[in-house]
């Protein structure tokens, strides 16, 4: 559930980009940061290694503006994708309202996608969350590359919840905002 501050007339939602290493989570956030109206976003904070791999998280706050008298914000986070950073991923998931699972569509990345997907649900369940209140979207990324799974196949392999699916090429921005739009609307609908 989001933080609702009636006194300050503010509501904040937390959205997390999840997925295996190098699937494009940070690329999504960097594209949003570059393209969205600068007045609607804050600073992009990245805790990364010297090789620019995410060590802890990236963070980008977006302001939707005032809706029905409430200043409405979305706080976007990524997690570190590499498998040995699971402790950090769990921490970033705390208090999450919506998850975008970024799947790398390349056939060679199937094992990493499945591992990350199972790891996501393990971590959410270990938090004791009410998952019916969680926004969830699967973004099939890297559609611009060759040797990728069809959307139907990837959907069958990864989408056991029947959640909304989007297609993207985050590096050129295709589908980035479409995905974000879906999850933003979901979290508002699910958490009120």
């Amino acid at each position, binding site marked *: 559930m989001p933080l609702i*501050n009636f006194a300050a007339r503010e509501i904040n939602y937390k959205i997390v980009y999840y997925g295996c290493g190098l699937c494009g989570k940070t690329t999504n956030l960097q594209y949003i940061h570059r393209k969205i109206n600068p007045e609607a976003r804050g600073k992009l904070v990245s805790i990364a290694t010297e090789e620019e791999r995410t060590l802890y998280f990236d963070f980008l706050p977006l302001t939707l503006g005032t809706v029905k008298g409430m200043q409405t914000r979305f706080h976007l986070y990524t997690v570190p994708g590499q498998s040995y950073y699971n402790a950090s991923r769990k921490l970033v998931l705390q208090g999450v309202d919506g998850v975008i699972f970024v799947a790398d569509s390349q056939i060679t990345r199937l094992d990493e996608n499945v591992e990350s997907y199972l790891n996501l649900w393990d971590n959410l369940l270990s938090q004791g969350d009410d998952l019916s209140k969680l926004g969830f979207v699967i973004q099939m990324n890297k559609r611009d590359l060759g040797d990728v799974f069809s959307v139907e196949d990837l959907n069958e392999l990864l989408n056991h919840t029947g959640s909304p699916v989007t297609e993207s090429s985050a590096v050129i921005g295709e589908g980035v905002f479409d995905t974000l739009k879906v999850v933003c609307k979901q979290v508002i609908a699910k958490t009120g």
Partner: protein
Amino acid sequence: MARRKGLVINDRQLDRCDDLLQKLKEVSGSSFLALISTSGQPITTASDTYHPETLSLASLAASSFAATQQLARILDENEFTLLFHEGSALNLHVSQVNEQVLLIVTFGRETQVGKVRLYTQRAIEVLRQIFDGPDDGTTPTMDADFESSAGTAIDDLFKDV
């Protein structure tokens, strides 16, 4: 591990928090104070002259604190209840109010750490009563049209990108 449940703050709670933070700032000699959620979202601040980027600060402080809690577990310690960073000009003190709320205090080298710790601990006891006390029935509900209005605002925000 924090469970996902709503943190809803009403006028009375915020007024009491603001009063308390202001007093804490004065008696402790600190320069900036913020209440934030453990998921990294700011609730309220008290500051005269020093205005850090609150959203980023809240996100980083909450994450650091969460990491500290996990370090405690790995070291078989029940919990580390505060996080302290000492800088050349500024110190940062983060402490836990309850399962959902953290208190950030920054103060300069001229202020004694012990003084900040003492008054912060006293303030936390009062803050716990504010957040953990029974619901006094004054918390309003969301506007029924919020979802549809927010949907329109989302479409507008993303339409030209």
